[in-house]
């Protein structure tokens, strides 16, 4: 299980390096909401709520392909850390069935819980030296809002997807989703907790389809 992750990362890293090689992919631009005076230096996303709608700041989207895909035998364990009183990363997309660890990297207690319908859990209070690292298996697709019972401002999002194909766009809205199975699918874009765009795509083998949203 462990060695699989670096390999996957390697594969992902290598993929853009071989543009000549034909593969089934979809790419395009998602029109993201304008973020006024986007701080360039922000490297991680924060979750902001506006009128009860949660989104990342600066805005990014998650593009994913929906369809009937075979179950994975095993899925890598992901991590959402609590660091400097924030969830890192603030937005995590995972395939359903993934276990996510919540390491505490602050020198204080955190109490991660979620009341989201997709996954309700409460990890209780724990310190950084808690072992094993408290983890939760997310087996139902949906959006899970992470909160800390001690630090009311902390928000994290885990987008649990029923697909192995997804990608997080850049802050410019551009994305490329490759290694897809050819055929008739639904391409979806998660923009915020209330907004998911979708369109159908016909993926031809070894071709890159261009799909812009909206």
């Amino acid at each position, binding site marked *: 299980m462990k060695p699989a992750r670096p390999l996957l990362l390697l594969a992902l890293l290598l993929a853009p390096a071989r543009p000549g090689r034909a593969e089934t992919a979809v790419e395009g631009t998602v029109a993201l909401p304008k973020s006024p005076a986007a701080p360039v230096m922000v490297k991680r996303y924060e979750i902001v*709520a506006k*009128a*009860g709608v949660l989104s990342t700041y600066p805005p990014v989207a998650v593009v994913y392909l929906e369809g009937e895909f075979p179950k994975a035998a095993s899925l890598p364990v992901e991590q959402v850390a609590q660091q400097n009183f924030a969830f890192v990363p603030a937005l995590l997309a995972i395939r359903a069935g993934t276990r996510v660890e919540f390491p505490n990297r602050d020198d204080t207690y955190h109490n991660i819980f*979620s*009341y989201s319908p997709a996954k309700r859990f409460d990890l209780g209070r724990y310190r950084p030296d808690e072992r094993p690292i408290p983890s939760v298996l997310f087996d139902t697709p949906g959006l899970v809002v992470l909160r800390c019972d001690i630090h*009311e401002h902390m928000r994290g999002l885990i987008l649990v997807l029923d697909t192995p194909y997804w990608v997080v766009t850049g802050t410019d809205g551009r994305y490329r989703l490759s290694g897809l199975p050819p055929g008739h699918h639904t391409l979806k874009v998660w923009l915020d907790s209330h907004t998911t765009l979708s369109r159908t795509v016909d993926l031809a083998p070894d071709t890159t389809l261009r799909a812009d949203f909206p």
Partner: protein
Amino acid sequence: MTAPVQPPPAGVARFRTRLLLAMMLVVSAATALSLFFAQRHVAAAAQRSLNQEFQDALASLHAVQAVRDAVLAERCRTLARRPRIHAALEDNALDLLYPSSEDELSDVREGAAGPAGERETYALRARFYRFLDRRGAVLSPPDPAREGALAPAEEAALALPGAPGRPQTGYLARSAGGAEPVDEVIAMPIVSTETGEVIAALVLGFKPLELAGAPTDAALRSGVWLDGRLHLPALGAPARAAVAARIARALAAGGPGEASFPIDVEGTPSLLFCLRLNPGSLYPPAYQVSIYPLTAAVARQRRLTWQFLAAGGLLLLGAFAASELLAVRLSAPVEQLAVKSEADRVGRRQAEAALELTSEELQRSARFSADASHQLKTPVTVLRAGLEELLASEILPPETREELAALVHQTFRLTSVIEDLLLLSRMDAGRLQIDFRRVDLTPLVEAWLDDWGALPDGRDLAVETDIPPALVVSGEARYLTLILQNLLENARKYSRTGGRVRIAAWAEGPWAILRIANNGDPIPPAAQAHIFERFHRGPVGENVPGHGLGLNLARELARLHRGDLRLARSDEAWTEFEVRFRLADPAPAAAPEVR
């Protein structure tokens, strides 16, 4: 003149009665007015103090409510910040709302914690609580027993048109039991920490705070008027309905704020105050109603009225007595005045009559003198002219002519008397005006002495004079001459042969004093008082010429000159007259010449 003390005339008695009546009227009016105002003031003060009491009690109630609301608001703010509550509300996990809030609200809920005794009194213990969602609808708890059971209608009454922006106070009539208790309800907004929006509300139900009634008035009954119904367990149902209807009318008439009016509750006159408990609330208006039985107040008022009446009566009696006294005192001078003026009038009338008489007599006599003088003057002149004519004729024998000469001399005397009478009559009639001028007495005396020397007289008188070179007096020369003439003539006449006449004059203060003395027979003391009367002559001289008018005339004239004439002495040595006149230039403060 002194009138006897008479009973006051009818006018004065009437005056006194009227005065007394007016004063009594004024006193009665003043007493009645002051009584009226005093009683009204007392009644108003009693009502005001009751009202004040009620307002104070209500104010303290509101103050306690405000404190509790502030505590609850703070608790709600804390609650609203609790991530679990937020998560339940925001993450569509309402089923977890009540379970999540149980811990948070455990110290608010009645019976959840704390000793039993504390529960009853502790104003922050809620009997129940419910959440309202964003639209103001009630979120029913999954297990109402834990949050405090409510009937469906009661729970529905908690709903609001939307989650309120500010705490709202309401009152909820509980149907449980026959007592119809009222619970106080506070809806506290729950504000999202993310958006600042009101995302829900927490509604807490309390046992209402007791109105801190005046401890002195145990009979005070207080309750809550809500939705046309009066929740006042101390009152019977029919009375309750009647009072509730009356309150509804008063509130409809007098605006929504407050009302206070006297009312008969179950046959007891009472004062009812009601004031809105939840002004400005989205919940239906509820009013704190307090009923003060006025039995004690009425009794007190009645007692006070009697006291006032008694005091007023006493006051009135005293005032009447004072009025009577005052009227007597005030009318006494008037009576005296009346009596006196009556006496005065009589006296004056008498005096006037007497005066008139005297004046008439005087006038008559003066006129008579004047008439007589004038009537006499002419025949005397005619007589003298005839005699002189006879005298001038050569036909008469010398002895007859001598007699005729004596007769002519008599006519001169007669003329002199007539002139004196004329002068006197003018003086008596007040018609003689002195024309005051500066007159030097010295030349007058000297001129007379010169004439005197020329008189054919065998008396051989020695005349001594001591007269300043000038003695200027204020007067009229002809009358001054007449005075001097009379005096000097007298001195000469009454001197014994070979006697002396002494004339001295000097200035003394404002006076010029002239003394003329002769030595002759003294005037008897009995006669001295009468020498200045008219037609008085000394007993000495039937042989002495004179007609008894000289001294009188001289004195009258001297007095007309604002001076005087008196007999200075009359004894064997000297008979001396002193006449004084006003100096024309009185020596200013100079030491008078002492003689």
